[in-house]
């Protein structure tokens, strides 16, 4: 692993009597594509929310590129891009206007914003729809626009919280290609997903968390070999059980 871009040390997050993160420690290297896997309610989104500065941890600490996520949150927010789980876009703005807005919130200059906007719209296949109101977009198009909003300012560290949910296979593969391209640009990426083939295909390493604890860590191949199963999905089922979970 390269020099760490993300460092999590003994992170604890409690909601009254529920422990969402239980002494979680983890390091993600610069340029690494890390898969954060776990059943519903395991603590994946809580981890991302703490790293983004949206949630204050009950204990422990975390840093991104050397900046403490609590003490230097404004600096951290300049460095990160987050594709959140909700398809959060302004429906009354066009796709291009949504992108403009978030570019301006990151205080991008006009020329750079225009260049990156055109590039990302093109890569996400939204050229013909960029000037339509986002309310008219399909679910997949909204997810792709949401991804562009997370990446418009060219962040160093990217959090992708289930980025391919509700996408058709074509869109999903386009997004996979794009994520791999980001990796070639030495971006650090944390990907949470319920699609195990997605994690197996894309991730350098994966961490499986359950009940807020890290229960497995390694490359997909290492975990498959260690658990003597055929694929990552079987590793996941073996470690977390077959019981259905709901988001807490």
């Amino acid at each position, binding site marked *: 692993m390269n020099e760490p871009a993300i460092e999590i040390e003994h992170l604890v997050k409690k909601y009254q009597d529920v422990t969402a993160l239980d002494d979680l420690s983890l390091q993600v290297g610069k340029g690494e594509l890390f898969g954060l896997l776990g059943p519903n309610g395991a603590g994946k989104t809580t981890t991302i929310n703490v790293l*983004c*500065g*949206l949630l204050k941890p009950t204990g422990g600490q975390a840093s991104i590129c050397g900046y403490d996520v609590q003490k230097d949150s*404004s600096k951290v*927010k*300049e460095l*990160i891009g*987050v594709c*959140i*789980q*909700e*398809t*959060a*876009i*302004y429906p*009354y*703005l066009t796709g291009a*206007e949504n992108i*403009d*807005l*978030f570019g*301006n*919130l*990151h*205080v991008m200059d006009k020329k750079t914003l225009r260049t990156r906007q055109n590039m990302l719209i093109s890569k996400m296949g939204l050229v013909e729809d960029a000037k339509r*109101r986002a309310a008219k977009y399909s679910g997949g198009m909204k997810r792709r626009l949401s991804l562009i*909003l997370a990446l418009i300012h060219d962040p160093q560290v990217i959090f992708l919280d289930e980025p391919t949910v509700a996408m058709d296979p074509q869109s999903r593969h386009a997004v996979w290609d794009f994520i791999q391209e980001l990796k070639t640009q030495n971006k650090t990426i944390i990907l949470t997903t319920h699609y195990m083939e997605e994690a197996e295909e894309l991730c350098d390493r994966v961490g499986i968390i359950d009940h807020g604890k890290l229960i497995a860590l390694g490359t997909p191949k290492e975990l498959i070999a260690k658990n003597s199963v055929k694929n990552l999905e079987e590793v996941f089922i073996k470690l977390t059980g077959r019981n259905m979970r709901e988001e807490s």
Partner: protein
Amino acid sequence: MKVQRILALTKKEIKKTVREPAVLFMIFLFPIIFVVAFGTAFGGSGSGNVVYNIGVVNTDAGSSTVYSQHFLNTLTDTKILNLQMYTDNMSAQTDLSQGKIQAIIFIPKDFSQSLASYQAAPNNPEQWTNASVSLYLDKGSLVATQAIPPILQHGLLSLTGQGVPIQSSVSLSTGTLVEVNTISALDFIAPGMFTFASIFLIMMVGQSFAQDRENGMMKRIRITPTSSTEFIASQVVSYMCIALIQAALVFTLTYALGFHPAVGIPTYAFAFILVLVFSVSNVGFGLITATIAKSSGAATGIAFIFVIPQMFLGTFVGASLSSAAQTACRFVPSYYVTDALTSLFLRGASITSQAILIDLAITLVFCVGILAAGIALYSKKFKI
């Protein structure tokens, strides 16, 4: 604080107002439709046990002032007029322009002499010493302009011993402020319209914050380096812009319908500034609404907790309120804005007059306090 962020968020908020049909209706069309309909339905004279404060400048002189005393006693006996005596016309005019009294009766120095000449030769007008009682009315009160002149006329007739209007030595003339025949329901309600339109911003702000929370946009914005100060500043600027557009629309509409106050550009500019300041309090109330509301739908209903009192106690709706309600008026900022606008447009008060400055100061205090309370409550429960 980055202006680029504030401008981007402001632009977004204004686009929302223009593009969302429900918002567009609520912000611009509803107040206009409601105001026109309400003005048409309730613009007439009031009724009930209303008491008018009347200033009296009695310059009646000579050997006997018995007729002027009799005249004033007759007016007092009506139980409708509360007479306040003034020693000079100037101080009475000041109180009239500030809304403290609804009319001034100016009794001329030859009043009793005139009536004495009438009594001496009631059928010979050539022997009369003619006199004229001047009446100055508050143009901001439609009810006063319609109710007071007949009462005075009745009082004058009682001096001549006649029950019906006849030719007499004493006549009632209207002062320069009085335009009894030209004042309309629209003139009366127009100042309140400016305030009324802005009140509905409360609902829009409440809905907007609750909606952004529901659909994850608030979370998305919080992930950017945008500070809470920048975000709140953008909301205040956005809704001030919207309030300005509202005021311009309402003014254009009322002007087209015949509301032509005889005031200059500085007064209009000041009126717009008052509406802008008032919009800040509505952002504050909107934030409190969003704090209480669990969803944008709930915010619509909860907003009425703040909309209704402001509407009924602080705009033209509250023209003929009970004395208890008139006391309650003092606790809503819209009252002070409407009062100031009425003084400016209808009473002819200058923008530097004490009444206007006091109204502005109280409005400012309300606005800052309500916005601060809104921010504090919202950020305590949710993150901005």
